């Protein structure tokens, strides 16, 4: 049963990340997830200082606020001052992350908080945190419900917003010329990425979120010619990584998150080599 819950949560998070990551890659903003996952640190520390507890909710709120601030700052530096997107991402998150570190060291005496506990949620603990109702009924792990809710929300967003996301991702200027609110779509997507990043790394850890946002969509991008297929394929690669990663981890008795990220990377490599061979064959024919 434990294996089932861990694989289920891993897969739910993997699909959420794969869907959003596909859009991020096509918008050339793949590193935004990385940026958010670091930049939320000061938000978490401030939330901790203000609430004085390690309750999840205040921390999530603090993290989400900083996540949104991160995307606003990135966009501001990029659009208002013509700074390249990658430079803008780099400046924003290193700076915010540094503030988080300083806050932690300043309050180290009073704060029982370190980067490990805020940045590296552990997927292996998923089955331990059960949701027991008032009447004592066991609903299963809490994370399963949170991750399912998140995925449902994202599916609704992408299903309803497909055209809006499609046109603003492919050709923002043309969308603007049609009178479409491109800022709305940008921030809707960034808000979704912030939410996903924060929720996911609370349950599976930061490194894994960043890997799942980028690697499965990049793998799908190699072999697809159609956005809908890219969304589907990257979800499948994400799920395969979660399943493969779990069994790899139990085989070598290692970190599950690390194993999932490794399997995702390994899948990318396989697809990349196969594609290379296929192209060679096409040319030599």
């Amino acid at each position: 049963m434990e294996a089932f819950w861990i694989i289920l949560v891993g897969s739910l998070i993997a699909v959420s990340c794969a869907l959003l990551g596909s859009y991020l890659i096509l918008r050339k903003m793949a590193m935004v997830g990385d940026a958010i996952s670091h930049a939320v640190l000061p938000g978490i520390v401030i939330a901790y200082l203000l609430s004085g507890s390690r309750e999840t909710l205040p921390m999530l709120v603090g993290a989400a606020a900083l996540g949104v601030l991160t995307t606003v700052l990135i966009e501001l530096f990029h659009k208002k001052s013509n700074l390249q997107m990658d430079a803008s991402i780099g400046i924003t998150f290193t700076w915010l992350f540094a503030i988080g570190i300083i806050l932690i060291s300043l309050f180290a005496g009073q704060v029982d908080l370190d980067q490990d506990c805020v940045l590296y949620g552990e997927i292996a603990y998923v089955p331990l945190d059960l949701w027991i109702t008032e009447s004592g009924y066991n609903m299963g792990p809490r994370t399963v419900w949170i991750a399912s809710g998140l995925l449902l929300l994202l599916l609704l967003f992408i299903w309803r917003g497909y055209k809006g996301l499609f046109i603003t991702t492919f050709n923002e200027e043309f969308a603007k010329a049609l009178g479409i609110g491109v800022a709305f779509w940008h921030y809707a997507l960034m808000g979704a990425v912030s939410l996903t990043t924060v929720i996911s790394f609370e349950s599976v850890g930061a490194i894994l979120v960043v890997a799942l946002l980028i690697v499965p969509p990049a793998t799908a991008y190699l072999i697809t010619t159609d956005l809908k297929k890219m969304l589907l394929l990257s979800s499948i690669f994400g799920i395969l990584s979660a399943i493969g990663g779990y069994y790899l981890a139990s085989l070598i008795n290692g970190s599950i998150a690390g194993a999932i990220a490794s399997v995702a990377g390994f899948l990318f490599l396989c697809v990349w080599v196969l594609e290379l061979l296929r192209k060679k064959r096409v040319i030599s024919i």
Partner: protein
Amino acid sequence: MISIETHNLTVSYNRRPVLWNIDFELPTGKIIGIIGPNGSGKTTLLKAIMGLVPTSSGYVKIFNQDLEDVRSRVSYVPQRESVDWDFPASVMDIVLMGRYKKNNLFKRITKADRDIAAEALEKVNMLEFSNRQISQLSGGQQQRVFIARSLAQGADLYIMDEPFVGVDAATEEAILNLLHDMKNQGKTVVVVHHDLQTAKDFFDWIVLLNTRMVAAGPKEEIFNKKLLQEAYGGKLNVLSQVGDLMKEKAFNVREK
């Protein structure tokens, strides 16, 4: 009738003006060229007309109204290099974007939309490529897809940025024919173009641009050495082209 009117239009990037005091009124039902050397502000002018860049002063009117009130009658074809052609989308997906509107963004694409898109592809001779991924198109085919997307909008005014750049002779001919068809249907087409050689064949009307507006009017009035020199400045090879142009005084006007 006036298609586009600009008054005292000034646009700056980082406080450096790249368009200065542009004042013109363009007619309707004509093929109009916006001509000027590289960096003379042609793309910026189109973007200012479409409300895509902030203006420092002046205003733009389209069909005597604000852009917001006539948006559905105006179609914009951006420079081909402004998008990523490796995007996972088919030719049809792109052309269908011409049917997207602010108020149907959350609705599904209809059969009527598909029919209109197919018709537009037919007009640019690209119907057989409907399902092809856009990364597998030549430059000329990409340009045709962009024009088809614009046609699918069913507008009255078309504003195109450098549609003749990097296209083969067949595509150039096809696009020209299309522009004339559109003109015959009473549409107005404004085209950014940097090649002086072909400009006199392509357009009825010309706006000469070099940060400032050098001149605007019917091409017979614009193609004189003084104005062209003013627009193209001391660029030697261009000046010799101007000389050639002056020699072939006869403008073979396309009559239909």
